[in-house]
């Protein structure tokens, strides 16, 4: 009997090697330990075993049973491992490129805009936006721009034919529609619907009827800020722009105010910075923004009492700042969208 059991185990050990699938495994297992299996049959012989031998033979049978069980378990695991491996394929070469990989990212002008907004948001400004199509009132009249100011020329500003109607852009009266030349129009619209104090930055696309070259684009982006409160001074303006320039260009960057002229601010300044740590910039003064105290007549046109309220406004070109920050020497790169350009500013 004991030999018979051992033989069954030995046979099973030999035969199981050729069992490869789970189905074959199940039938093979049945052929050994199933109701009609070899071992089951052999176990029936136990009845004939003399009583004194029973414990010994029984023990041997149990041993074989246990060994067979282990054999099946082990082989099943081998099959399962093989099945799983087949599902995911051969080991990969981790160094291969990713099929169809795509680098996502934001445009450098978006990144610079978001950085600027972030700096101003830290000191309490929120973002206000407005339409790109504007009217002459919001773009010029309300901003104290004389009616024969050159900026209004057909030469310099895009207008729409008188019959064009815009469903969601309000006119003051029946003035002409145009493409905004600056985002200052957003300041007017915001002040008209908000009571002071006001603290906003308005980024956005602006248009000048300009032929494109390395430093000009008919289509460009500005960000302007407006601060209205009681007793706002030139010193407050300088303090904010100092803070901004240091935040953007590093704590050693310096700011210079040059008196200038804009119709909507008085006094008006152009702002230069110098940042000797920026390699390409060096120690020269470089113009970065325009600013000034809001002209009292601008307040009058939005119904603010200029005796009670004062404020300042500032504006800068996002392309220009991006060019300074990244050392880009031609504005047209921003609108060409060559991946080799765009990718350089990720991360």
């Amino acid at each position: 009997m004991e030999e018979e059991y051992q033989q069954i185990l030995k046979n099973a050990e030999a035969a199981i090697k050729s069992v490869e699938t789970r189905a074959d495994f199940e039938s093979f297992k049945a052929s050994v330990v199933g109701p009609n299996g070899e071992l089951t049959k052999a176990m029936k012989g136990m009845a004939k075993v003399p009583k004194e031998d029973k414990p010994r033979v029984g023990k041997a049978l149990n041993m074989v049973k246990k060994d067979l069980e282990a054999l099946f378990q082990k082989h099943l695991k081998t099959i399962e491992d093989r099945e799983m491996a087949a599902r995911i394929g051969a080991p990969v070469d981790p160094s291969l490129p990713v099929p169809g990989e795509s680098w996502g990212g934001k445009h450098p002008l978006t990144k610079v805009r978001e950085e600027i907004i972030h700096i101003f948001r830290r000191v309490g400004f929120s973002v206000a936006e407005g339409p790109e199509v504007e009217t002459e009132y919001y773009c010029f009249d309300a901003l104290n721009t004389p009616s024969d100011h050159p900026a209004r020329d057909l030469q310099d500003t895009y207008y729409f034919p008188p019959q064009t109607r815009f469903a969601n852009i309000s006119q003051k009266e029946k003035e002409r529609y145009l493409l905004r030349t600056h985002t200052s129009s957003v300041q007017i619209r915001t002040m008209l619907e908000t009571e002071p104090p006001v603290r906003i930055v308005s980024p956005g696309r602006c248009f000048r009827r300009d032929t494109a070259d390395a430093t000009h684009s008919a289509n460009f982006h500005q960000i302007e800020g407006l601060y209205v409160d009681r007793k706002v001074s030139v010193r407050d303006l300088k303090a904010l722009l100092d803070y901004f320039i240091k935040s953007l260009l590093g704590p050693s960057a310096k700011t210079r105010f040059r008196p200038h002229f804009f119709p909507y601010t008085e006094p008006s300044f152009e702002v230069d910075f110098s940042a000797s740590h920026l390699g390409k910039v060096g120690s020269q003064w470089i113009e970065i923004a325009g600013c000034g105290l809001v002209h009292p007549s601008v307040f009058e046109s939005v119904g603010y009492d200029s005796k009670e309220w004062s404020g300042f406004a500032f504006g800068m070109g996002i392309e220009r700042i991006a060019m300074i920050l990244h050392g880009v020497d031609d504005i047209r790169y921003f609108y060409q969208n060559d991946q080799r350009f765009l990718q350089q500013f990720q991360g």
Partner: protein
Amino acid sequence: MKISYNWIKDYIELDRSVEEVEQALTLIGFEVDGIEETGLPDLPKVVVGEVLERNPHPNADRLSVCQVLTEPEGEPSTIVCGADNYKVGDRVPVALPGAVLPGGFKIKSAKLRGVMSSGMMCSAKEIGMGDDAAGLWILDQRPPVGQPLNEVFPDRDTVFQVEVTPNRPDCLSHLGMARELAAYFRIPFSYPEVFPFPESNGSVDPESLLRKVGVESEENCPHYTAWRIANVKIGPSPDWLVRRLRSVGLRPINNIVDVTNFVLHELGQPLHAFDAAKIEGQKLIVRQAGDGEKITTLDGKERTLSSRMMVVADARKALIVAGVMGSLDAEVDESTQNVVLESAYFRPGSIRATSKRLGLSTDSSYRFERGVDPDGVAYAAKRAINLIQEVAGGEILPPYLEEGAAFALEKEINLDRIYLDERAGFVIPDEEVERIFDSLECTVSRKQHRDGREYWQIGIPSFRGDLDSPIDLVEEVVRLYGTDRIPSGEVRGIGLVREDDASSRANHDFGCALAGQGFQECMNYTLRSGDELKKWYSSGGADSLAVMNPLSVEQSHLRWSLIPGLLDVLRLNQFRKTGLHRVFETGHTFYERDGAVIEANSVAFIWFHNDHQQCWREAQAPDFYNAKAIIQGLGRKVGLDLGAFPPGEMRLTNSAWQEGHSATIGDLSEEGFEARFGLLNLALLKEYDLGGIAAAGVFSLTPEFLEKARPRPQFKPISLFPAAERDLALVVPSDDIGIQVRETLKSIVVRETRHAFTVEDVYLFDVYQGQGLEEKEKSLAFSLVFRALDRTLQEKEVNDVFTRVQKAVERETSYRIRR
């Protein structure tokens, strides 16, 4: 504008370096665009030499060997020279050994083709005096031999190219700039003195020069004067005058014209000198031109005038375009004997309009259109007459003829001390404030309001038309106090209750979502071509998007979609093989609806799969559902579940989308949002040289929609008990869209559940068409998911509901249950 340093020193004693002056100009508001050194640079060891002998070079045909005397009593030097324009006896500049010429060229004794040469004879260019390099600079005035060249030509000058802002016409002159620098450097400033004219001896009848001045265009010409000068001697101007004019880039003409140009650049008042003999009828009339009237201006061009332009005419014809340019018909030339000098104030608007219409901007029009000193007419004339008498002689025939009058406004502005302090944000001492106004020629008196507050009463000089209100005075004080002295301050950061505009937040979220899925943001121009628009968007409307005055046909219409720009980007990048294939853009787009244009905030993406992409394993091409997944993700960013809207048929008014593989949801004019997505038209892609498949989407929202407040989500409890599921397959017409069948089924399921428990979901898990079904049928299989908040559902209660649902479907719908 060009400002000569030497010239400015006629009015102020300025002893500052060029750098200091440049910085001062910059800090008081006159940006310096360039600095030009004129005249001779500093050239030690370059002296006057005289050629004593000139012999052929033994070894070179083109060279000569000269003996040149460079010291009056010394030995001549041997100098080899390649020029040919000189002769023995000429005096020329000689660079001696040890001299350094401009550009760092060092002169030393050296052998030239075997002959020792001790120095170099120079051309004008070689020593930095202009561009003439054709030959040696022959010094015709024969200065003494050995004299250093810097002594022969002492007038070195520095010319600043200065930008003057349009509000400061008073600074379009050397005198004006000198006044500003004097105020900044705190140094005295003086006007050029005007002398009384010598009396005429009465030999010439003034009326023979000019009888009458008439101003018809009173509105445009409030003040006109004409001064009669007889017996001038026309000739070249003296050196000092020539130098002054040359320093600001003007060509000398003759002494009379040169004086008028000089005064223009000195005082900022344009003048005009007529040859009296050329004035017919001895009268000058300031009038509007006739429509179509012709004049040949001094630049030799015949110009057609209109009634909106003003001229100064004689009895017969227009002689000058007033304030802009003279004509050939009245010019002072060699034969001129008697002169009429015009000094006038013309209104800025009139001159600006004329200059613009004629496309003609001159030194004169530039000043008139910005506004000359309304009280400066007589002073400028007198100054010019002094100078004419100095350089051309002549006698003045009084009286001068005048129409209108100087109209200097007596303007006073009160500046409160407290207002100045508040706007400046720091305190500038009284004396400093008063000194600044004084140096700007304002009158200053310190006063007190009744309540004791202090203020200054400031009298504004006639040439400062830009000073109108107290804030203008604050600017003057801050400007001349020095912006570099504004003390540093603290950023005032008081929190205000205002959130960023919704469009800004949405674009940020869209950008993050798409960048995170491997899309690269791009930026394209807003203006696009009308042809492209018409091709893409055949239903009219193109005209509404046209700008009135495009610069080119490529940029003539507002963009109606971001997709064309993105396709351009893909084409460029595919062509350049940069590997870019997933792109997006956010920006404003413009939709024409019912004759009106809606400006919307848009985001668009394209996921392009190149058929010929080379890769070791092919990437999977995107399909409609990839586009749908992305657009739904964008919808969620603004609180919209786009999957819950039945997609409308794509308006095939544009050929951008592939029929049967694209859809649209929403409508911009009705709902305030609109999404289009799916595959782009394959034929269109081909036109862009894009061989492959492109899944794309456009999501546009009106600012009004975005600004609508969205309620905060409110918590709904979630069940911890298991769900029960039942599957149900419905045979429906193959045209029916999934979401309609699902909605119908779902409403039945919800109703039949009778609030006993929750219908958690009804989702479509299988679509089948083919064997066992009719041709125009399809089977949609749904899984119904039930759950209760408070218990595990019993088999029976779920089965009851399921049975009722099946009965209801059979009873109420045309759908067949597939078993």
